[in-house]
């Protein structure tokens, strides 16, 4: 297991570096950051001054190496837009994203996995049809629209929850529901499909023939094998939720990393964009690595293969 983990760690760091490098280059390909920073009222001479003031006149590679050098020592620089340290901004917004993403992920899993298992017991039954209906609507309804409808009903009509912001924990209720509703269908479908496949396997018949209880058959024998692909998908879904759904953050005026990344990209706030990309790429590789480790633990065959 240790060599496997070491290899994955090295790959993780290389991936994060590669993503950072590509992102840095793309920022320049997308348009001159100095022009973006100068704003719509910026004249050519303002652009020139900004280019020099922020060192944007140096070769992109040199700028990247300089940024990397600082980032490795934990210095992510100062936001060009807010004129305060990037670490302070991220420190402000990361917790919001962690709470939102984690809560939505947990809720999605709590609904998707039991529902997927129950639906698989009687394919075509009423519960299965209900679960599939839930999945189809979750996939089909645009999350910004669902968000707005919930805002109107629960925020405007009934005034039960805040409409925007996360000044109190109640502000998380609607966005968590919408985000999890969006993530739930894929998790549910995969659980259901995996369970249906596994429940038809010989070893399940054997377990049942030996008189094992239904709960034991489902949770110990079947689920362990059925969840292998689910673990990988869950890691990606969790990553998506942590990188933030820009749409949901916008609708509910939640100031998480996703929207910060998007806004910073539009305003060419290079230090902020780079720091977020580094963090998110590390999150993704950590999550996918964790998924591989969990799968290896669940299925000994994978361990020997690795």
């Amino acid at each position, binding site marked *: 297991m240790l060599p496997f983990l070491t290899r994955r760690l090295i790959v993780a760091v290389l991936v994060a570096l590669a993503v950072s490098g590509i992102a840095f280059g793309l920022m320049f390909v997308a*348009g*001159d950051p100095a022009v973006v920073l100068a704003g719509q009222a910026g004249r050519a001479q303002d652009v020139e*001054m900004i280019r020099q*003031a922020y060192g944007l006149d140096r070769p992109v590679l040199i700028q990247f190496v300089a940024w990397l050098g600082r980032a490795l020592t934990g210095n992510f620089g100062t936001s060009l837009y*807010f*004129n*305060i340290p990037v670490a302070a901004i991220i420190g402000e917004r990361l917790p919001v994203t962690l709470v939102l993403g984690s809560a939505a992920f947990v809720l999605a899993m709590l609904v998707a996995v039991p529902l997927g298992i129950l639906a698989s017991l009687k394919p075509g039954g009423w519960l299965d049809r209900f679960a599939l209906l839930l999945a189809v609507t979750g996939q089909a309804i645009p999350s*910004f629209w669902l968000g707005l409808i919930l805002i109107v009903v629960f925020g405007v009509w009934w005034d039960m929850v805040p409409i925007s912001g996360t000044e109190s924990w109640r502000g998380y209720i609607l966005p968590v529901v919408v985000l999890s509703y969006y993530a739930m269908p894929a998790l549910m479908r995969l659980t259901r499909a995996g369970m249906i496949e596994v429940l038809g396997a010989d070893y399940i018949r054997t377990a049942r023939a030996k008189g094992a209880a239904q709960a034991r058959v489902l949770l110990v024998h079947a689920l362990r094998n059925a969840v292998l692909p689910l673990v990988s998908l869950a890691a990606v879904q969790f990553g998506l939720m942590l990188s933030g759904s820009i749409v949901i953050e916008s609708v509910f005026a939640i100031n998480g990393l996703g929207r910060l990344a998007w806004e910073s990209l539009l305003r060419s706030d290079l230090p902020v964009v780079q720091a977020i990309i580094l963090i998110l790429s590390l999150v993704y590789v950590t999550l996918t690595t964790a998924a591989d480790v969990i799968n290896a633990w669940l299925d000994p065959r994978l361990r020997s293969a690795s």
Partner: protein
Amino acid sequence: MTRFAIASLLGGVALTLFGMSAQPALAGKADDTLNVAFALEPEALDTYKIAGREGLILARHIYDGLLYKDLDTGEIKPALASAWRFVDPMTMEFDLREGVTFHNGAKFSADDVVYTLNTVLDPNYGTRFRISVDWIEKVEKVSDYKVRIKLAKPFAGAIEMLADALPIYPAAYFKEGGSAGMAAKPVGTGPYKLTEMTPGIRYAFERFDGHYAGSPKGKPAIGKIVVRTIPELNTQFAELLAGKLDWTWRIPPDQAARLASRVQIVNGPIMRIAYVGMTVTAKGKDYPTKNVLVRRAINHAVNREAIVKAFAGGASQVLNAACNPKQFGCAQDVAKYDFDPAKAKALLTEAGFPNGIDIEMVFAAMPRPVAEAVASDLGKAGIRVTLNEQQFAAGVQKWRAGDLPAFFTNWGSYGTGDVAFIISNFFGGGADDMVQDKEVIDLVTAADQAQDRALRQDNYAKALKKIADQAYWLPMYDFNINYGLSASLVFKPHPDEFARWWLSSWK
């Protein structure tokens, strides 16, 4: 169906649901708090490094300048300076007001003016718009309450700039913390002090009881202001209807009409105008727009009246001169090009293009439907347009490189009511000038540098006349803004896009 159309449709459903909501409450009147929402995040509140309107609005509540422009009367009033005069054409002298206190308790004096302005005019400081300070050579202290500004060049816009656009910071505090310090904890002499800030997200203000007597901004009627960023307009509307918001702006015309029966919608014209710039001269390029007949054809081909009516609405109007009529010097006695596709075709034929022409038009910071309407009108007159939407930065880069025959965008003149802030940029011979008409450049430069208002007006008028005669631009229309207000708020919009909440009150 495009994503925009789907979003509009679904937004419409949501708005219909809003219409079924209960009566809005009184929002912030009950606790004397003006609840404001912006869609965009305000920048760091060091005015000198801000480009966005949101941050500038907040900054004007925190800071004061030497002078103040009363936009309702057009009068320049004393602010931190109690009087001012030109000692000679290149020297301005200011008597400063005594007894003014900063939010941190520091006493205002000449040192604050000298240190602030000398610091921000140093190129190393990185003042965002050089045009705002590059006319100052240096600032000298004459006595504790008297300063002199030595001009680096004659600049007719000096008074406009000093009127609240160049705020004065407390010298000792500014020296200690620099720009970052001002951004982290802004301190000024303004009518409101900042009490709480989560950068870009939430700003809380409290009326500054120590604000100097006799300020042209007056004593604010509202005690507290809370500004939040709510990027999604539909969410803003929900807050407004639920009585949790008192002020928001930039509401699209169709949505303003829907909301009008539920909340106060106030419409006001602004300084920003839409235009199509055309390249006359660019190195190595030979665009059809080089030909004056083609440019005139373009002017005749677009049905601007219909476009304004369909898309801009409100107080917007069709423009003829290359400026906003609300600006000083924006002469209206210029050539007018009526909508006349037949004449446009005839002009093209006369120019040697009987089969029409093909041009690329990039549009940026303009709604796609408006650009499509312009392109469609041009197409009907035989001017086949390849329409290309770009981010403003990318578009303006191509424009400055001379890679575009036509660029459809807008310009806000920094919210300043003087044509110096528009035609000097586009026709004064600089990087944005793809016309490079020597006669116009000379007229504009002379007007920019003169102090005599009549002379300035005369020179600008001549320049604008030639710009229209030669159809260097297709001036489109001026913009208007819809403000959404709670029923209990009194708010007056101003054309410079600066919300003045210090003038607001409760009904």
